[in-house]
């Protein structure tokens, strides 16, 4: 059992409800959790804090049976070792989670979403719709959410969906409630309501694991804290004993002295000028310049509108207003094709979904976006396509047995290189990289970083969206921070400090 970290513990801290001992979780190439130890106590809110990618969501998924931990660790409930093979078993064990990505069903009603998988049934085993409806009504009322249980989930706002997700967790009679970034997309009023809900749950004796990187949340609700950094526990104890600075120190840990092969490059003329970019619901008043040879970082919390804004620049969604000029020439980008033509390229975050065509060979993947250059008289010149693929795979140092190897058989880092190669082949002026090293192992990160420097040296303008603080600070000449769809600050030179960026991103003035 975990040794107490601070003196004078209240009695309840002696007997944890849930105790995690030595839990690790390895994904191919990445150790997401490394020998985690921590405990949850009855009637206590424990805040789990850490940077994006520190392993918080992975830990939640292990506790809720979505992921299976590596062999060797133990999860104890009331002192007894338990296995949590699936989400159903987790619910039976009294563990309920409100996940970060609200995992709900768009086409089902609110009441159904609340009870799906554990609907009340009548004596002969048929669903009891009256109980489902009134039960949903009751639990929604309990959390003060004014939502009609009959409305379809698709018609609700993100905030309302979160309320439904909370109601769903409460509809299971859970002793342990896990809330993964519950306030990330709630308005101020909704956040206040949520705090009240958390307090009520606490009074009912439930153990709450509250995950957030907003310090206002942590200080408003938590009794204890646990800090995760790079998949390891970097601190825990009572919240009363730590300052925000202490927590930030534990979150960031390392000073930013990691090897980021960022070379100083001569900054040239403005290549991209964006003015007053505004979308009805996603972002507003985004204006910035990008110069040749510059790496411009975009930092912010998950869901702060960075990716949405970049996708709008690239013409994926064209439901927005604003002006965009490349090399001083105003362009109208209505479709990604226009953007590529104009020399602006976006490399998406979800490689598998938006980037590479996994079951296709390397050659065809690299050649995909520049077919116009490798096609003559409407026919594809396979030799030329191969030359292009070879050129870029050599430049990017893609490790593969041959260029006809399927992309799905490559490691994450090499997949990312294939995607980058595809876009370089279009010979762009501006390259937007969305989370370029997310989910790839440390070893593959620095080649990607080195290559970014090299591209900047070739007078490309680079935009890097990243939630990885050391990466943003290490690689960027300048950083724009976004919060809730708006620009919350611009930092360069000596102002490129972790605490300043985190403060701007969370809207927390007194860090």
């Amino acid at each position: 059992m975990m040794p107490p970290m601070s003196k004078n513990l209240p009695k309840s801290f002696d007997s944890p409800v849930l105790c995690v001992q030595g839990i690790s979780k390895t994904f191919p190439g990445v150790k997401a959790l490394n020998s985690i130890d921590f405990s949850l106590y009855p009637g206590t809110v424990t805040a789990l804090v850490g940077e994006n990618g520190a392993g918080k969501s992975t830990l939640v998924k292990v506790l809720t049976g979505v992921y299976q931990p590596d062999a060797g660790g133990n999860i104890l409930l009331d002192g007894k070792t338990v296995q949590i093979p699936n989400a159903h078993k987790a619910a039976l064990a009294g563990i309920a989670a409100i996940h970060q990505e609200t995992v709900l069903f768009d086409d089902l009603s609110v009441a159904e979403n609340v009870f799906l998988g554990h609907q009340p049934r009548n004596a002969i085993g048929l669903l009891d719709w009256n109980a489902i409806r009134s039960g949903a009504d009751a639990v929604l009322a309990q959390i003060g959410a004014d939502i009609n249980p009959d409305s379809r989930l698709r018609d609700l706002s993100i905030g309302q969906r979160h309320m439904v997700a909370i109601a769903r967790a409460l509809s299971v009679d859970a002793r342990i409630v896990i809330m993964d970034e519950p306030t990330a997309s709630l308005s101020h009023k909704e956040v206040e309501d949520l705090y009240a809900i958390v307090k009520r749950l606490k009074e009912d004796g439930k153990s709450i694991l509250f995950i957030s990187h907003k310090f206002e949340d942590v200080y408003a609700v938590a009794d204890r804290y646990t800090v995760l950094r790079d998949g390891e526990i970097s601190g825990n104890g009572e919240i009363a004993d730590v300052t925000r600075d202490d927590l930030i120190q534990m979150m960031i840990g390392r000073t930013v002295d990691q090897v980021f092969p960022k070379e100083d490059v001569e900054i040239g003329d403005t290549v991209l000028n964006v003015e007053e970019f505004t979308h009805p619901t996603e972002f507003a008043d985004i204006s910035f310049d990008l110069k040749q040879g510059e790496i411009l970082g975009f930092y912010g919390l998950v869901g702060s509108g960075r990716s949405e804004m970049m996708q709008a620049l690239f013409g994926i969604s064209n439901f927005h207003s604003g002006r965009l000029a490349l090399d001083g020439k105003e362009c109208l980008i209505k479709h990604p094709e226009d953007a590529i033509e104009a020399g602006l390229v976006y490399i998406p975050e979800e490689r598998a979904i938006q980037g590479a065509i996994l079951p296709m060979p390397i050659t065809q993947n690299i050649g995909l976006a520049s077919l116009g250059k490798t096609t003559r008289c409407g026919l594809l010149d396979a030799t030329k396509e191969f030359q292009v693929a070879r050129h870029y795979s050599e430049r990017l140092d893609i490790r593969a047995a041959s260029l006809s190897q399927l992309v799905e058989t490559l490691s994450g880092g090499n997949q990312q290189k294939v995607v980058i190669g595809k876009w370089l082949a279009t010979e762009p002026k501006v390259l937007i990289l969305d989370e370029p090293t997310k989910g790839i192992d440390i070893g593959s990160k620095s080649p990607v970083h080195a290559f970014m420097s090299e591209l900047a040296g070739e007078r490309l303008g680079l935009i890097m969206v990243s939630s990885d603080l050391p990466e943003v600070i290490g690689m960027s000449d300048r950083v724009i921070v976004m919060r809730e769809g708006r620009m919350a600050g611009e930092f360069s030179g000596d102002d490129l400090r972790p605490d300043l960026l985190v403060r701007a991103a969370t809207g927390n003035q007194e860090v």
Partner: protein
Amino acid sequence: MPTHSLFWTRHETALSVVVLLLLVGVNLKSPGFAGPGNLVELLNDTSILVILGLGQMAVILTRGIDLSVAANLALTGMVVAMINSVAPGVPLAVLLVLAVAIGFALGAVNGLLVGKVGVPAIVVTLGTMAIYRGMIFLISGGEWINAHEMSDSFVGFPREKVLRLPILSWFAVLLLILMFVLIILTRLGRNFYAVGGSPHAAVYAGIDVGKTQFWAFSISGAFAGLCGYLWVSRFAVAYVDVARGFELEVIAACVIGGVSIAGGVGTVPGVVLGALFLGTVKNALPVIGISPFWQMAVAGSAILIAVIIHAHSQKTQGRIILKEARTVQ
């Protein structure tokens, strides 16, 4: 009662208006088409399509597709017809149970391969479709079983009338109610929607996706098995090519009825209306002197229109990130 959107949406309203207009329109040109006698005939004619459509709906709801229903029907039909011709003494009730059981087993094969082994549904059922057809040839040697080889009760049962409606139609009504209860009042039924609507979220909700798919295919198979008997007795003939290509009509009925091929959306009344629409078109075209070949074109156009309307109404909106956008809600 559940929320009304589970069994009636704008789509069902629109489709019933279309079917009604069709009936009234054809009736103007050919009085008596919408008369009670002909309507009973029409309903009876569409019964098998309705039953198969309901089974298919379960599969499509889970993001699957069952191309093997017509082959399942033909194989099961052949088996019961052969038993009847060799041993006319076997009671009809036994044959009915047997038909359902064989159909269920054939569907369960699909369900195991899709749900447990994880092979895509279109591949599995394309394969079993060919296998089941081949099996008919193997057991029958390519021979036909004709009306005179079947017992009177075997052929006569679906035609007997209860309350002026043939038994065949009553089967459709019975299964409609059964499916309605299954879809609305059981966890399995609701799990169909969850699994098809968002397999990812279904896992988080503690739903066994593979098991849910297994049951969808097994139900589709059981319905097809029952239809095997109904088909061979109604047309009083069983041979290798019975109902060849009918699976496409079944899928068409579902799609026209508003079942989303992407899974997770669809209603029982929608499927029934989709089947009735196809049945009405099929019956109306000869009456108003249009070549039955047009029926295919009309059905095809109806599918496209239904899907286009559906796609249009589901156009994606942006996420809500800005504070102002939230307060508007």
